[in-house]
């Protein structure tokens, strides 16, 4: 029983920690896709955020400034994507592919130049994201240890759940959100009502980059303690998958990310104890996602104008 509670605690901890970066990326993806711009460049934006966050934290010693700068770096690449797709009407998939090459290319090159040919940037404990509620719980009891495992976790994790709430509120309860969703469904209708579609989409793609950058930063500043070229390996794509899974709603993406994080957590626990092959266990999150899709989710309704460049008449 004790073991079970411990394991459960560890699984939940891992679920939260693994979901966090995905969730930032997924919220970012929501902003872009729901406003009508396909953004497969989340991965590149996350890498940029991971690097910038780590480097800034390394030099300033302040994880929060690092975290914020990670977001801004993502926003910069978001802006590039926005200029190409929103202002110049570029093919959104091609532009996103370019971002996925440019983001990692630029930052790893910078890393090598800044850190004398090594591309690994380590962070000390004080440069890392702080843990909230560390030491709050009495770890000598089973229940206390469970609570410590689950809740004594990184500030970035708490923050992302607040972010989900905020994004949900923005999407469904504010003027900006109503217009944002309308832009992804029927940009011409928005234009005839005096809504500036170009500006809306531009803003959304930049926000998308910002959130993705934050997601990247929490990979290197919370989940692990260093930046490496392979820090971001596919999280951006998983985030996109979570959004499609969640039918382009922030609350749906939350479910997708948690499912994925939970499977990853399961992997951590099982990988340690059972005799099952590591690689097969690692496959679980992906297989489960496909199965859940087939059994419960099915078709996802894509915003009507998603992927279609909006070209304003002159």
């Amino acid at each position, binding site marked *: 029983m004790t073991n079970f509670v411990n394991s459960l605690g560890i699984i939940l901890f891992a679920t939260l920690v693994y979901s966090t970066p995905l969730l930032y990326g997924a919220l970012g993806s929501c902003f872009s896709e729901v406003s009508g711009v396909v953004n*497969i460049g989340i991965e590149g934006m996350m890498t940029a955020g991971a690097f910038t966050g780590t480097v800034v934290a390394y030099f300033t010693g302040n994880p929060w400034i690092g975290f914020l700068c990670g977001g801004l770096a993502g926003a910069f690449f978001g802006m590039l994507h926005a200029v190409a797709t929103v202002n110049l009407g570029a093919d959104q998939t091609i532009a996103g592919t370019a*971002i996925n*090459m440019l983001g990692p290319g630029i930052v790893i090159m910078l890393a090598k*130049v800044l850190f004398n040919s090594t591309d690994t940037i380590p962070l000390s404990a004080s440069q890392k994201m702080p843990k909230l509620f560390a030491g709050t719980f009495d770890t000598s009891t089973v229940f206390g240890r469970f609570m410590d495992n689950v809740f004594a976790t990184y500030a970035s994790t708490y923050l992302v759940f607040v972010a989900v709430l905020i994004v949900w509120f923005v999407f469904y309860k504010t003027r900006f959100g109503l217009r944002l969703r309308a832009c992804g469904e029927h940009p011409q209708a928005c234009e005839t009502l005096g809504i500036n579609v170009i500006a809306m989409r531009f803003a959304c793609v930049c926000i998308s980059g910002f959130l993705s950058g934050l997601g990247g930063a929490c990979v290197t500043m919370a989940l692990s303690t260093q930046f490496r070229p392979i820090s971001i*390996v596919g999280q951006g794509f998983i985030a996109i*998958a979570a959004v499609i899974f969640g039918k382009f709603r922030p609350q749906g993406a939350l479910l997708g990310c948690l499912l994925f994080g939970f499977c990853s957590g399961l992997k951590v626990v099982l990988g340690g104890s059972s005799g099952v092959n590591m690689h097969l266990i690692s496959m679980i999150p992906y297989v489960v996602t496909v199965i859940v*899709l087939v059994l419960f989710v099915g078709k996802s309704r894509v915003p009507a104008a998603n992927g279609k460049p909006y070209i304003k008449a002159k």
Partner: protein
Amino acid sequence: MTKKKGFLDLISENRFIHILLSILLGFVVGAIFLAVMGLSVGAAYGRLINSVTSLKGFSYVVVYAVPYIVAGLSVAFSFKTGVFNIGAEGQFVVGSMAAVVTSIFGASLPKPLLIPLCFLAAMAAGAIWGVIVGVLKTKWGINEVLSMIMFNWIAFYLSNFIAGIPAIKNEGTAEATKNIADNASLLFSKDFIKSTGLAPTANWGFIAAIVATVLIWFIIEKTTLGYELKAVGSNKFAAEYGGISVNRSILTALAISGALAGLAGALQVMGMGKRISIFTSQEGFGFAGIVVALIGCSNPFGVLAAGMFYGALMYGGSKLNLEGVPTQLINVIVGTVVFFIAISVIFANLKRLKGRAAVKKSDAKEEKK
């Protein structure tokens, strides 16, 4: 008409020129990065050019290019038929593993039998990987981009799992499969390589790449199958109205695209790779295929050229650290090239910016919307 105007007309209308301009701008942006970082542009680009222009260097380029070309064909074919095969990565991985496994179990077979067998196994594996996604899409309506991302990772871990099975694993090291059987190797004979001074990994794979290019071009441009797939790709509603089965076409397109990616995997491992290591991160051949297809405008012969270009950059890039330049410079250059290809509409508008020539009527129609 002045001479200058003619030149602008050429820039505006020619897709090929857009690509060349994008490539040029890629190198310009790369140079700017180098300069900002205090690295020598001349040394870096000099090394890049020198390393690929010797006979040996060029043979390396061809060796590097083969899997990129075939992976690029896979993605290009999918683009032509209206699917975005972001799953080429996974199909490549299962293809190369199928080739290795086949060669290990068929090691005693003669070369003329084993090589085609390995190719077939790889193509079948890639095709199956593609068709699974197709079935998920046509039967349950599951977004193909989503399931391809999942199947890329499933392939990744499956490959790692198989690489660890005792019958496959290399006994010496724990990190890779056994080498492919000699009879499945595409390498030129040692004597030939020695006498010509080619790269030690120089191999016959380029023949397969050229054959695949011509074949795919023929299918797309000349056959009823190509007609069907293109019709579904550009307007599935009209295709269905015209009596073409959309679901069957999607499955066929994914099978062919997957088979090509699988073949690319086989060519890589039977040519220069020899064995498959346990991956720590995705190898990126499939993603490179996307880039190659984009630079090649999804035209098979364009892909052939783009694959060579990409291979040259990748091989040349691997020599950059000799000059103290990070190899990631290549990603910056290629990323910039793709970025400019995405916004190549700006080249088409150069003319309009100049404010000289009249805009075509077709453009006017666009604007009227």
